């Protein structure tokens, strides 16, 4: 056991660096530098570059289009993409429904959906939460009833991220009202262009349109689009949630975030000293960096166990809790750093003013980013739920 990269690993790292330098979409890079809103096409531009190279789904088994990388290579990949500010690929297809389909799906489902997830042809969204079913997900009430070879699905989903762009959605629906809660749920793949689906935006505190309500009114879904057995969808749901939690830790992007924070703090002056030389502020940054190192090695241990064939279990809740708290702390410190210039609301700047920040660009983004980051301890199973999982599943309480 050691922490060193082998010669092969270092060669791989160089290959990755060269590839990113040569192939990262220039237009996307420009928009990121300017702090512009990213469109669906922007997100897909990087996805498609990676798909062409065969690097879009490192975590997938090779037979379905994975890279076959070692866990060290995957670590290098996430480090390098974060270090160079590559956008995070949308997780709904690649990290969520993809693994469910290749684990539980029929050969026909695998053949139909997996290639289109890899290519970026289909944009996916997640229909889990409902207005009355958040932390208590199993109490969901969206129902699917048989009608010939189809289901008719009626109900309402909420917090559906990026549904405004989605071609397909994976939905948890109730197919048996009489069974105990978890046992009457099925996992359906639904074409978002189906008649009877309406997507309504929810605007969050920073002014973003990321999440939506999805209303379903007698939406016709072929039974062949059900993954796994009827009434056994909870098995898929749990499997997916555990996978989601691992990815949610965001170690590599938080590391990049800390680097950026330090770089700005070193130039942001407070009289004669930089903020990074302010002993109060630097202590907070140092503590954050140390927390992040602890998380990083916890994640590496989890990934090593997964590489050994173990599915991520309740331990992934540890990653979710610490990862989300660290992401939030990063935004707290950035907002503190912004001082007075955290107050201007950039989405409200006048017409034509958008390219001209008040003070500095990063400072104008600090408050909306901080507000937005409160979601990280709520989504993917709130941190209260994660602690319940640890208490019950790990500690046996």
């Amino acid at each position, binding site marked *: 056991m050691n922490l060193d990269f082998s010669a092969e690993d270092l060669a791989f790292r160089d290959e990755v660096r060269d590839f990113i330098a040569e192939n990262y979409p220039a237009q996307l890079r420009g928009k990121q530098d300017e702090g512009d809103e990213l469109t669906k096409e922007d997100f897909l531009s990087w996805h498609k570059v990676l798909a062409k190279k065969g690097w879009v789904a490192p975590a997938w088994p090779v037979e379905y289009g994975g890279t076959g990388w070692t866990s060290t290579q995957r670590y290098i990949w996430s480090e390098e993409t974060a270090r160079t500010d590559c956008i995070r690929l949308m997780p709904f297809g690649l990290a969520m429904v993809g693994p469910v389909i290749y684990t539980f799906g029929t050969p026909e489902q695998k053949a139909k959906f997996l290639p289109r997830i890899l290519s970026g042809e289909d944009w996916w969204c997640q229909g889990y939460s409902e207005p009355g079913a*958040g932390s208590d997900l199993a109490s969901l009430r969206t129902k699917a009833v048989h009608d010939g070879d189809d289901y008719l699905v009626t109900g309402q989903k909420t917090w559906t991220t990026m549904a405004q762009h989605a071609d397909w959605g994976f939905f948890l629906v109730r197919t048996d009202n009489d069974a105990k809660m978890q046992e009457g749920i099925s996992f359906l793949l639904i074409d978002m262009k189906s008649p009877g689906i309406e997507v309504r935006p929810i605007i969050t505190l920073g002014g973003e349109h990321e999440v939506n309500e999805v209303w379903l009114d007698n939406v016709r879904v072929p039974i062949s689009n059900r993954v796994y057995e009827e009434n056994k969808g909870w098995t898929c749901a749990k499997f997916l949630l555990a996978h989601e939690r691992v990815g949610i830790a965001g170690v590599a992007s938080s590391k990049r975030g800390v680097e950026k924070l330090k770089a700005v703090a070193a130039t942001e002056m407070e009289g004669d000293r930089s903020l990074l030389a302010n002993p109060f502020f630097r202590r907070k940054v140092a503590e954050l960096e140390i927390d992040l190192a602890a998380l990083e090695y916890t994640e590496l241990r989890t990934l090593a166990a997964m590489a050994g064939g173990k599915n991520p279990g309740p331990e992934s809740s540890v990653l979710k809790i610490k990862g989300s708290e660290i992401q939030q702390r990063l935004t707290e410190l950035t907002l503190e750093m912004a001082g007075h210039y955290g107050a201007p*609301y950039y989405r409200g700047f006048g017409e034509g003013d958008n390219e001209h920040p008040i003070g500095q660009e990063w400072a104008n983004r600090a408050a*909306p980013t901080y507000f937005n980051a409160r979601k990280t301890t709520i989504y993917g199973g709130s941190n209260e739920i994660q602690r319940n999982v640890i208490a019950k599943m790990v500690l046996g309480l």
Partner: protein
Amino acid sequence: MDLSTTETQGMLRETLARFLADNYSFDARQKMIASPEGRDPGIWRALSSELGLTCAPFAEDLGGMGGGSIENLIMMEEFGKVIAIEPWVQTVVAGGGALVAAGGPLAEATIPAIIAGDCVIAFAYAEPQGRYNLADIGTTAKADGAGYVLNGHKGVVYAAPWATHLLVTARTGGGRREREGVELFLIDAKAKGISRRDYPTVDGFRASEVYFENVAIPGEALLSGGIDLIERVVDECTVAVCAEATGISRAMLAQTVEYTGQRKQFGVPIGKFQVLQHRMADMLVEAEQIASMALMGTLRLDAEKDARKAAVSMVKAKVAKSIRFIGQSAVQTHGGIGITMELAIGHYFKRATMIEGQFGSADYHLERFEALTYAA
């Protein structure tokens, strides 16, 4: 020692609370913010000329009711409960406070206009490079005959787009960051040579970057007292936003308790879960600390200079930390709905967050408190 309020003070609170209950619902507030001006000037008119509340903190010989900072505390608590976007801190606390402290003909002329609602003031004290250091000032006021000529740039001036007057800090001498030579001026917001870039703030106000280019101002605009006066005025403002924090905290706690009583998960109202009960109990503990510190700060505003500064820094350091906990806890307990624009709670959280840094962050005030009270 006597911590009770007078009957008049009780009536003042009741009058404002009733007015706000009738006129400042969350929906009404959001409509004001969305309007072109970003506020409803009729509200200010009502608070001043109709209800006469603006006279509360001023002495009787200036046309006031004979009150002071306790009246401001009461008003700010009530404004906090509805996250009001009225320029009370800027106009009454900063402008009024500076004028009262400086005295003279300008005060005698302007305070009645504040009371009447004709004068709205914005406090232009911050500069882009200065962070929270009140003496880090590049804006200059150069003596010119009997008056001065102003040049410079003031940042994030809350309420500037609404203001008839600007309360401006500027340097008449000394080098950048020297305490000597910093002075306070009250000037006409429409004076020739002033330009602004206006914008909304994340917490629902309007603010501006204000630029001065050879702005000629009369000698009488000077409110003499230098940096000591400016620090006193900022301390009064600091305590005022801490009083606002009291109202905000209590409102956030009440809304959170109410929500957890209605929201059901796992077959019961989520307020039945002990982990949430303890969090809300901690919110109450912190809200009470905020109320206590805002009161302490108010009662110490007339103390000797260093004692006042140390006390106000204790207050702000504590309030900034406590209100962060309350805001974050309120949002977390609400869950996803807490970070949407739909529900009021998120808007309280935004204002609460901005109070953390307004007039000095926790770090700034901890450092000032230590420097003033711990011998090296």
